[in-house]
């Protein structure tokens, strides 16, 4: 096993303020809400201030970590001593980078929200939950133990639930999907309150798995503290492997991450989560919460791999390979499947949502590839693969947040979520157009934007991992990504709207909204242009991350594969440009006339029918079961409350027959029962 990571133990404060402050902010705001304060200013101010402070402390912490040592800020008193749970903040390289991304993005998006949510009837509630979310997300990435991590995890889920259903009165303009559209008989349009329930139930399935996994690992290791789990990894890995349950338990443990990060087959909730206000989609459903699952993988994959290397037993190595293969496979399927859906979608935020899940698939591929390298590659390769996942996480967080924030403005301008009603906005809003192009090209993977580098790294390690179909899907997805991105940008910025809305007056966004996305778009350029610096920082983070403790190699080399990918991306951009801008193919007409095209379109547009299949199979069987149980309940009710009384009545009737009021008859009965009783007594006790 490589050197265990050293860390400096400090007091609980100040570093725990990273997550404690936003919690306090949320608490103060809740009390203000109960006390009846209505003013928007208070809610906005407290929220933004507590997030900004958290960001500043995170920055300071990151500076300490990078210049000195990892930090373990621990409360001196245990919280739940029975399980050895304390309040502790653990900041290593990975945690520091995550906290920076989470807190600063949250800050920018909170500022954007001030303007975006202005005058909304749920303004106070929005900022209470928003702040609560930031605290929970910081807790996820900085928790020192699994229970705290779980608490943050559930907190983000709760906030996501509440914000997806923010406009819970379900007006039609807040829906997702085309009203009235059905696939396989199931509705494909979703109200905010419906989407909220979907989100909470999908992730609940995973979270219960997470709890089971935590239990199994705790019972095998005797600890819930993450650094201790790393140092005892050899022991509990061997124990789980000896029972033949290592990959199974790890998969159950990872169910939470898969569901949270909307990986196939849990991706459905993220799509409909777009009913939430757009800044929420940007923060929770693109930049941070959905990354919690990726963070989980980046956190635990190194611990598992380092443990397996130290242990060197065949059973553990094979168990881990099985596990990582499944995770990487699910990532690849998600990346590909959701990218195909994005190709045909006609809702701006839906395109971005599909794209998010698809890109998260990339991150899962990278993290799991690290595990697939186990056995034939050194720790440096492993660390680089994990860090490729983190690189993509960071660059995606930046450009996708920018894309969503731009989308928020465009939807506002168009008064519609459908891209067919948008178009030609570039001439009214230059800076917004530039932001969209920068962030979009980063998503498409064009050098020198950051998205190019991180995606190249992911694809590189997918190749190294040696599972050809996963690698193949990763490459194909790169092409699809470029296609849907460019289609989207051309559609909303440069082409004329398909369904013109004459009274829409487009203009540039107000500063409070413009600046956040402009900053993010420029950041995505800067991170790429200065990739040597960015990668140096991430490489240093790798050295400071538990389980890795190696410098990662994050420079992108021009190999044959890189050439192919760049060619594919450029080719697909070129074809989209040709089809939409030069040939001006009328796809809507094509779908009308061509049966095959229509089938293909419907298949992709209705999300491979997966949603409908879930409703038919899972929801259907549960509602049948509920119906059957309900019927059973009526039967039980009838038996007890009609059947038993009826038997009683019949018995009474029968007994009444015996009582005829004749003395001789009673005497005979008396003699009969006395002899029966005596006989019984003799039979049982007489001998």
């Amino acid at each position: 096993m490589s050197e265990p990571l050293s860390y400096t133990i400090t007091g609980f404060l100040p570093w725990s303020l990273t997550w404690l402050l936003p919690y306090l902010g949320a608490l103060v705001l809740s009390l203000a809400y109960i006390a009846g304060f209505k003013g928007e200013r208070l809610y906005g101010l407290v929220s933004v201030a507590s997030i900004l402070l958290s960001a500043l402390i995170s920055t300071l912490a990151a500076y300490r970590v990078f210049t000195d040592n990892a930090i373990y800020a621990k409360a001196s008193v245990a919280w739940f001593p029975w399980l050895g749970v304390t309040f502790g903040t653990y900041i290593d390289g990975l945690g520091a980078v995550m906290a920076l991304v989470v807190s600063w993005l949250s800050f920018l998006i909170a500022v954007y929200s001030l303007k975006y949510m202005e005058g909304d009837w749920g303004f106070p509630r929005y900022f209470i939950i928003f702040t609560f979310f930031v605290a929970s997300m910081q807790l996820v990435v900085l928790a020192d133990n699994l229970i705290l991590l779980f608490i943050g995890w559930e907190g983000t889920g709760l906030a996501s639930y509440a914000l997806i259903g923010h406009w819970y009165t379900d007006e039609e303009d807040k829906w997702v999907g085309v009203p009235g559209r059905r696939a396989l008989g199931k509705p494909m349009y979703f109200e905010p309150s419906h989407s909220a329930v979907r989100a909470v139930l999908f992730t609940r399935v995973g979270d219960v798995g997470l709890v089971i996994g935590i239990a199994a690992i705790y019972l095998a290791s005797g600890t819930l503290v993450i650094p201790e789990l790393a140092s005892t990894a050899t022991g509990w890995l061997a124990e789980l492997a000896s029972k033949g349950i290592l990959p199974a338990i790890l998969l159950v443990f990872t169910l939470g991450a898969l569901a949270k990060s909307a990986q196939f087959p849990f991706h459905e909730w993220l799509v409909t989560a777009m009913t939430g206000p757009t800044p929420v989609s940007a923060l929770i459903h693109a930049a941070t919460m959905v990354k919690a699952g990726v963070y989980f993988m980046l956190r635990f994959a190194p611990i598992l791999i380092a443990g397996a290397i130290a242990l060197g037993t065949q059973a553990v190595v094979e168990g881990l390979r099985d596990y990582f293969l499944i995770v990487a496979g699910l990532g690849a399927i998600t990346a590909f499947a959701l990218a195909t859906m994005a190709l045909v979608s006609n809702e701006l935020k839906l395109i971005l949502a599909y794209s998010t899940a698809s890109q998260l698939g990339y991150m899962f591929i990278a993290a799991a590839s690290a595990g697939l390298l186990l056995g034939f590659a050194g720790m440096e390769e492993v660390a680089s693969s994990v860090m490729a996942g983190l690189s993509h996480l960071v660059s995606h967080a930046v450009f996708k947040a920018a894309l969503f924030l731009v989308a928020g403005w465009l939807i506002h301008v168009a008064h519609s979520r459908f891209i067919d009603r948008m178009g030609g906005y570039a001439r009214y809003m230059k800076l917004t157009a530039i932001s969209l192009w920068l962030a979009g090209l980063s998503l498409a993977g064009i050098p020198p934007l950051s998205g190019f580098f991180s995606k190249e790294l992911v694809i590189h390690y997918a190749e190294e991992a040696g599972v050809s179909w996963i690698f193949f899907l990763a490459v194909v997805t790169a092409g699809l990504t470029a296609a849907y991105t460019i289609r989207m940008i051309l559609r909303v910025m440069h082409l004329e709207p398909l369904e013109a809305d004459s009274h829409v007056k487009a203009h540039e966004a107000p500063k409070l909204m413009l600046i956040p996305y402009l900053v993010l778009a420029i950041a995505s350029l800067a991170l790429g242009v200065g990739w040597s610096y960015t990668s140096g920082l991430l490489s240093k983070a790798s050295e400071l991350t538990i389980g890795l403790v190696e410098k990662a190699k994050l420079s992108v080399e021009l190999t044959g594969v890189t050439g192919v990918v760049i060619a594919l991306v450029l080719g697909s951009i070129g074809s989209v440009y040709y089809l939409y801008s030069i040939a001006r193919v009328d796809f809507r007409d094509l779908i009308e006339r061509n049966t095959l095209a229509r089938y293909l379109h419907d298949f992709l547009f209705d999300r491979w029918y997966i949603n409908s299949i879930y409703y038919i199979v899972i929801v259907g069987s549960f509602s049948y079961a509920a119906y059957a149980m309900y019927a059973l309940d009526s039967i039980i009710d009838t038996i007890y409350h009609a059947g038993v009384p009826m038997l009683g009545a019949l018995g009474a009737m029968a007994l009444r027959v015996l009582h005829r009021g004749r003395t001789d008859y009673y005497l005979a009965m008396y003699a009969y029962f006395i002899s029966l009783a005596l006989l019984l007594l003799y039979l049982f006790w007489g001998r």
Partner: protein
Amino acid sequence: MIMDYPLLWITLIIPLIVSLIVLLVRIENVRSTAYVGGFTLLLPAFIATYYAITGALSEGVFDPLQIDMENRGLGRFMLYIDGLSAPIVIGISIVTGFVSIYSVKYMLHRIDEMSSRGEPPPSFGVYYVLYVVFSISMLGMAYSTNLAEFYIFLELSLLSSFALIAYYGYGDRRRIALLYFIWTHVAGALFLAGVLYYGFKSGTFDVIKIVEGLPAYVSPFLEKGYQIAAWLIIIGLFIKMAVFGVHMWLPYAHAEAPTPVSALLSPNLIGIAGYALARFALPLFPSVFETYQWGFVALSFITIIYGGLVALRQSDFKRFLAYSSVSQMGYMLLGIFTLTAYGIGGSMLHYLSHAVGKAVLFMVAGVFIAELHGLRAIDKMGGLARRYPLIAAVSLLGFMHLVGIPPALGMWSEILITFGLVKAVPLAGVGSVVLLSSLVIVAFGVTAAYSFVTMRRIFFGPLKQQGTGESLDDFKGSILFIAVLGVFFFIAITPFSEALRTASTVLSSLVGGG
């Protein structure tokens, strides 16, 4: 440890005295008296928390006033709190305390309503006396160390709750009160028969004794025919707990009781049967628990899933909550029958989280009944968050307790019960992991499903009941207090951890677990 003063007896007697005063005061002063009564009912929670902080709870705390019935063959009647009963005591205490305040507006409204229909019920004073008798008899059960003592309190709780349903209930209240009476007395009779068999054979009804100044369980009961006694007691408690198959009385009684009484019946009273299972049945009959462990675990899962699925189809809010209680009892049962310290401790904590969560939800149902003209039909609700934002928020908290989402106390019980289950199940091979995970996911998933689906049906979507917004008065404030206390105990779990661990470990060591 033995207390310096008979504090536990005091917590039983003072509320009773206050309630008798309510009988005498004029109606304008009812509110302040109910406040005092509510406060005195909160005392046990303070006492339990105090001893938890001093650490005495780990050892167990006795009331100095003990009734010696040895010469009558009944053993000693003592009052006692330890880590196992602390969550129960706190649960009863905070729910009965705040519901006492909540009762004023609700019951005055109910009494008016019944009077205007020409069937005036007994006065508020009578209600309040019965209410307090009901409350303190539940506290007495949680304090008991002796089965005869427990039964006396049990009988008292049944009679008082029966009268409350019969006088102030909804629907066909006399029939339902009778139904409740018969069912619970069948349960009581079975339980009593088992207890008497144990008592006469062993010469005492004690389960916890003081040995050399420390509390100790009596040795397991292994006389001839002990299995009969065990089954009588277990089945009696199962009926009280409304486990699947013998749950049928619960939806009637809990749905049609006056709402403050539902808020006590549903989480508090039935859960005590689960507590008694761990406190009395397990130490007396450990071999029965071991032998039939997996059957009982199966029954727990059936109860959880069955109750949850039937709840999903209910159209009446209170009946929905009643089925949810059936389902929640499955969790308590599951925790106990893991026969591990985690599971047993988790089960007791679940009593408290369910008490908080379900009390909040029943009280919310009561708000709609009192303020929206008896509205109980879920289909007619919809969008109520727009009118009742605060009530919507506390309901969400209530549901979070049932589902186990932090910052609700329910998270701790969910985690402990799962830990216990994973420890109990011998995991070997992929099949066992898949089976266990799917069962747990389905069970917990059904709970989440009915919670969040119902949350949506009641509070979200277009608003169906027009009218003015909510005003925060003591009626709704009492709900808020219980909900906040649920979060408080989620954070302030620390002092209880050690006591709960000790008490649960003692029990699990009796059944060979850890």
